[in-house]
């Protein structure tokens, strides 16, 4: 049995005075232990919604999620979650952030100290343990967020656009750091992204989701040796094939989303990338604003 099993998930959002919006329907896939899987798709196709359900912060209308044979019914330390904005606690130092899961799970001092050293080793954060998140660069914050999620040895690491907020020049560098970090931690990863290049660079397998109810339009293995070269012909072929698939996924969105698209973007299909990116940032903001924690 696979480590993660997602079975027939359906999720609908209902808002006042609007028809119910089916975000995901009949969604199924599974992830083997040790795999690095990317969920790739245009903005608004339901990637964050899916990952949020994997995290246990939200429940599906129908369908089940199993992790290591156990049904997912709420958040828990068997899943390490890295948020798009990292959600590092700004009032805690790097060390306190990293050790938070061990603290609330009452690990003793010796265990905590030992784990801290291991995590500082793999994240190359020695010397920064007493700094506050505000004092760190974007890349360091990302590493803190990843090792914090890894601290209590989760079965799986869930990453929501871990580099979404990083500007273009830094992204490739941080992708390399992330690859090395995950490699050392030897963990299973499900990562959400809308960046084709990033998904090919990092993943063993890319699942392309459609803007139409999150339908899986492609499940592709990336058969390239690591560390990967972005310059290689094979890499570029994967990128162009997936780019075409993402376009298709975007077009499948159909007309029911028209109302969600800013007026200036409607019918601007020729400038696909620009409108796509603009929508992306917009939807991310909207979704983050809405998703209040269940208290």
């Amino acid at each position, binding site marked *: 049995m696979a480590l993660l099993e997602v079975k027939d998930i359906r999720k609908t959002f209902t808002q006042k005075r609007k028809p119910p919006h089916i975000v995901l329907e009949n969604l199924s896939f599974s992830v083997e232990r040790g795999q690095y899987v990317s969920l790739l798709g245009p903005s608004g196709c339901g990637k964050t919604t899916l990952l949020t359900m994997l995290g246990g912060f939200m429940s599906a209308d129908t369908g089940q999620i199993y992790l290591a044979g156990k049904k997912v019914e709420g958040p828990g330390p068997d899943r390490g979650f890295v948020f798009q904005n990292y959600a590092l606690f700004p009032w805690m130092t790097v060390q306190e952030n990293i050790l938070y899961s061990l603290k609330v799970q009452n690990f003793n001092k010796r265990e905590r100290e030992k784990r801290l050293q291991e995590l500082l080793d793999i994240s190359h954060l020695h010397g920064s343990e007493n700094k506050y998140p505000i004092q760190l*660069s974007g890349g360091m914050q990302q590493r803190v967020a990843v090792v914090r999620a890894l601290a209590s040895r989760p079965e799986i690491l869930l990453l929501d656009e871990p580099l979404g907020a990083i500007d273009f020049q830094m992204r490739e560098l941080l992708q390399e750091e992330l690859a090395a970090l995950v490699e050392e931690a030897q963990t299973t990863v499900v990562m959400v992204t809308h960046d084709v290049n990033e998904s090919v660079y990092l993943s063993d397998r890319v699942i392309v989701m459609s803007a139409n109810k999150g339908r899986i339009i492609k499940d592709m293995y990336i058969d390239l040796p690591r560390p990967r070269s972005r310059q290689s012909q094979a890499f570029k072929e994967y990128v162009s094939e997936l780019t075409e698939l993402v376009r298709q996924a975007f077009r499948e969105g159909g007309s029911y989303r028209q109302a969600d698209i800013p007026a200036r973007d409607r019918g601007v299909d020729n400038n696909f990338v620009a409108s796509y990116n603009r929508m992306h940032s917009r939807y991310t903001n909207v979704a983050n604003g809405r*998703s209040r924690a269940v208290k």
Partner: protein
Amino acid sequence: MERHGSTIPDVGNARLSLGDAFDKYRGSFYTLIVLVILMIIWNLAANKIQNTLLLPYFSETAMEFITAWGDPVIMFNLGLTLKRVFTGFLYAFIIGVPLGLLMGYSATAMQSLAPLMNSIRQVPIMAWVPLSIIWFGLGDGPTVFLIAMSAVFPLAINTIAGVEGIDSNYYNAARSMGASRRDLVRDIVVPGAMPNILTGCRLAMGAGWMSVICAEFIATSAGFGFLMVEAQVRLETAQLYALMVMSGLVGYAIDKVFVAFERKMTSWRFKDGFVGS
């Protein structure tokens, strides 16, 4: 590598440079100039009016001001007023902060308490004076009550805003790491709302200090506000001015203490952003 935080590279500005030592005191220097100008205007006006009952000379007021700090009666009454302010503030804190935390955290508490709170808040603070005298008689009781009454709302409202402003992902992150509800309150809700709670403290203290003086005009026969009424009755205008300046300075000093406390309690907010490679 990119820069983070608020550090802006210093592109040599066009300010007149008078050396590093001066730059450090530039602010105080300007304040001093303003004070001197005010003093000159004051004396010119006093010269013109020629009525020390309305406007005593600056020098006269300054003398009163200096002697006031050595006057045991004034110091005793100042101490009394300060004690009232801190007592009232303490009550307001004990009620306002937990109330704010509860209302910010629980939608049910918010829905049931907000209308009540928002209407009580609209009653002018001085309108409580008669009732507070009926309840507590004259003396410390009504003044402390009025201070608490004026301080509790800024505290509660800022605490609510603080809790509501906490990024929902902080809760999600903590929960996914295994935090219990108690952990969430201790590690997320309280520290997350702390900056606003401390702002609330400053505003509450200011409101308390302002209302105590008014309350002492009416509801008591001791305290700093009472001294002002006394000075007015005895037609000692210079002393009245001196007392007013004093009350302003004491309020200012209290605020400074709170600012220092704020910096200490939430030092993580005041670190420099990341700079470098």
